[in-house]
């Protein structure tokens, strides 16, 4: 039995030099044997593991028979952001998790094969799509993240006139402004964004709905609306000293890094938080000049919300993890942050999230010397969302309330999906939502 291949990657030393993509993809002589390790299961479980419904068996068989173009087209029909997802999907928790080959050796390296196919396609150039026969119906899409762009793409191919309103200068949402470049090079996201809008999608960037144009006006001018506005970064840890120079917000930090202009760091950098944003902030700090990066987390590794692959990635890069450590206040020196006073914690009864509540252990206060701090306490709904989208019902957490079967909101003709609805999941979930919403909108319009 041949073994699951590993992609070539940059060494930890090479990574420090900049934001170059770490994983280099499989070579042909790795991809083909891996494809022929696939058992071509009947009602293949891998397919049900992909929320976008990529026909894994179908594309792997095409890959095995060197039909790279056919494989790429098959994936792309299911997933507009094919090359992006093949890089950023937590596939070990998705398509690869139920893979039958696990019972023989290891799951098929599906996302690596997916990436091989997508990269072959990028080398040749993605074939653009044409708009469908005009239906005369107008649809507005708010937010040009993966959810909004997928929805717009599918609707335009069905012949609807689609206009996307995006607050930022560039489309792409967190694919462009969030996910670090060393995991997702910007040219990959850009190529697929261009493909997404290829069937004649009108794109209006730099338009903040609620400020530059009211939601009501958009509704009046369109036959249906899709809202895919994502999330904002959560407001920060309110402990003394949080506004000192040298205390950075992960959202801003990652945004600058993703745009190719990371803030310059030095010395020891502490990242506070235990989610994927914290892992990305820590690994970005490694690249931005930190000599040492330490992640502070109130619970243990087992409770960390960050995906295992992200944690392993950070460890490979030399990031240090201090668990059961809660910051109390930031210590100032020369009008700049110079340390964090922390207290050790122990785990108590489960809290509302189901995870054990960290309790402070008195007398364990200690100071960690740092040059910079990055606060990475995660994402949450935009605070202004309910006033911008007046009339729509929200869940208690601030996410938009929808019917799960159709993604319809409480207003007729208005649909929503992606992070703004699910509270923050994945690109592939946003794609799946965009597809489902497009189908519901098309049904609604016809």
């Amino acid at each position, binding site marked *: 039995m041949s073994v699951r291949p590993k992609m070539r990657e940059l060494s930890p030393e090479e990574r420090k030099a900049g934001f170059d993509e770490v994983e280099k993809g499989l070579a042909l002589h790795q991809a*083909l044997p891996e494809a022929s390790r696939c058992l071509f299961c*009947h009602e293949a479980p891998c397919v049900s593991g992909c929320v976008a419904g990529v026909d894994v068996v*179908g594309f792997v068989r095409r890959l095995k028979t060197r039909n790279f173009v056919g494989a790429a087209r098959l994936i792309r029909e299911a997933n507009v952001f094919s090359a992006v997802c093949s890089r950023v999907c937590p596939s070990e928790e998705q398509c690869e998790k139920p893979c039958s080959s696990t019972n023989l050796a290891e799951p098929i390296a599906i996302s690596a094969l997916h990436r091989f196919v997508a990269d072959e396609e990028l080398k040749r150039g993605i074939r653009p799509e044409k708009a469908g026969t005009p239906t005369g119906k107008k649809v507005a899409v708010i937010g040009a993240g993966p959810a909004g762009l997928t929805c717009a793409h599918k609707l335009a191919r069905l012949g609807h006139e689609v206009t996307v309103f995006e607050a930022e200068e560039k489309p792409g949402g967190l694919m462009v402004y969030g996910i670090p470049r060393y995991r997702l090079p910007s040219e990959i996201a850009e190529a697929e964004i261009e493909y997404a809008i290829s069937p004649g999608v009108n794109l209006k960037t730099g338009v903040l709905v609620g400020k530059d144009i009211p939601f009501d006006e958009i509704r009046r001018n369109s036959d249906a609306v899709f809202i895919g506005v994502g999330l904002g970064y959560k407001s920060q840890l309110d402990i003394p000293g949080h506004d000192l120079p040298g205390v950075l917000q992960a959202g801003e930090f990652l945004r600058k890094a993703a745009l190719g202009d990371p803030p310059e760091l030095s010395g020891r950098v502490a990242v506070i938080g235990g989610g994927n944003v914290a892992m990305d902030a820590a690994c970005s700090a490694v690249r931005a000049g930190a000599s040492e990066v330490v992640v502070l987390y109130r619970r243990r590794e087992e409770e960390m919300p960050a995906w295992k692959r992200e944690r392993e990635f950070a460890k490979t890069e030399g990031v240090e993890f201090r668990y059961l450590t809660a910051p109390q206040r930031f210590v100032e020196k020369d009008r700049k942050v110079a340390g964090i006073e922390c207290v050790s914690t122990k785990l108590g009864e489960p809290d509302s999230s189901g995870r054990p509540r960290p309790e402070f252990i008195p007398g364990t206060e200690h100071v960690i010397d740092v040059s910079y701090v990055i606060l990475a306490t995660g994402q949450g709904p935009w605070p202004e969302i309910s006033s911008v989208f007046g009339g729509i019902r929200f869940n208690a957490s601030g996410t938009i309330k929808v019917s799960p079967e159709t993604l319809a909101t409480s207003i007729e003709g208005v649909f929503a999906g992606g992070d703004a609805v699910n509270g923050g999941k994945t690109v592939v979930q946003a794609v799946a939502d965009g597809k489902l919403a497009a189908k519901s909108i098309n049904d609604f319009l016809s």
Partner: protein
Amino acid sequence: MVDLSLEFCGVKFPNPFTLAAAPTTDSAEMVARAFEAGWGGAILKTTSVETEVVELVYPMMSGIDFEDKKLMGLQNIDLISERHIDEVEKDVKALKKEFPDRVVAASIMGAEKEDWQELVRRLEAAGVDLIECSFSCPHGMPERGMGSTIGQDPELTERTARWVKEAAERVPIVIKLTPQIADITAAAHAVKRSGADGVCAINTLKSLIGVDLDTFIPYPNVGGYSTYGGYSGPAIKPVTLRCVAEIAKSVDIPIAAVGGISTWMDAVEFLLLGATNIQLCTAVMRNGFRIIEDLIDGLTVYLEEKGMKSVTELVGKALPYIVDHSKLSRDYKVVSAVNRETCIKCDVCYIACMDGAHQAIELDENRIPVINEDKCKGCGMCETVCPVEGCITLKPRES
């Protein structure tokens, strides 16, 4: 859009992919599912007259693996269908009604002239598009003077094919050949002389798939005894390629290719060698009717990339490049070249050249193979064993 349709013996197939006569075509229900999946045609499992007794034995399938790869080859000791012509007639009618655009063919086998002719007349009346005659089953049936007994003898082949052809008023007659003959072109010439319309190459190879090391009983063990069977699957593809090429180069007759075809790439090879119909059996038994999606998509993309509009453009294109061994150039010299960047230092080329060829590979201090160009004859053994695609190539020598 590329056109995949192809004419074979005057019958138009919407695509060349056809189910060979086998268990996959032994009922109208199965063939209907295959047609729904996209198959262009089906040769129904071989049938005979009601008086021909068919008693099957089980188990009848045995596989051979190549190292960790399952089913490099399959051996069966199946016989013809247990369902006689009366039931097949019904299947033909039902399938032609539901799928008028697909090709429904029957496969027949008989002992006497009357049997053959009755089979043809009844199936023609039932509405088949084409009739294939098995002169080629290598196991079981020859014991009754049928199957490959006929196909191994060009005279018997010509005589029997003539009976069949005489009886057919409308439908083309195709003779399915056995590779178990010294010169397959002699059999194909015999078919041509008989007036029959086409040949199908090849049926299974007579085989013995293995012996149980503990019981000493060969596979498959049928109540303590075993017998010879028919060998099919990827392992026999090179034999089929040779048979199809030999026939195409010497006999002017339409050829259906069958034997070891699993992928669209295999299909392209057979088209290039002159086949105008592509049949599959083992690959379908293993992976299901659904493989048609990849067969059609792969062939379509291939033609698109080649800038071809129709699959007919491929037919026979490789034939001019096959010549007698004596005609190959003695002045053409190649030498092995190793790509030092992609080499993974496994040294399998080294050992193959050392013990299997001309001791022309040395290893440098990094264990990267270095070709001694004086010793290298360019035999190509190293290239065949290298696990890295494109790492070892044979380059023409500068003279």
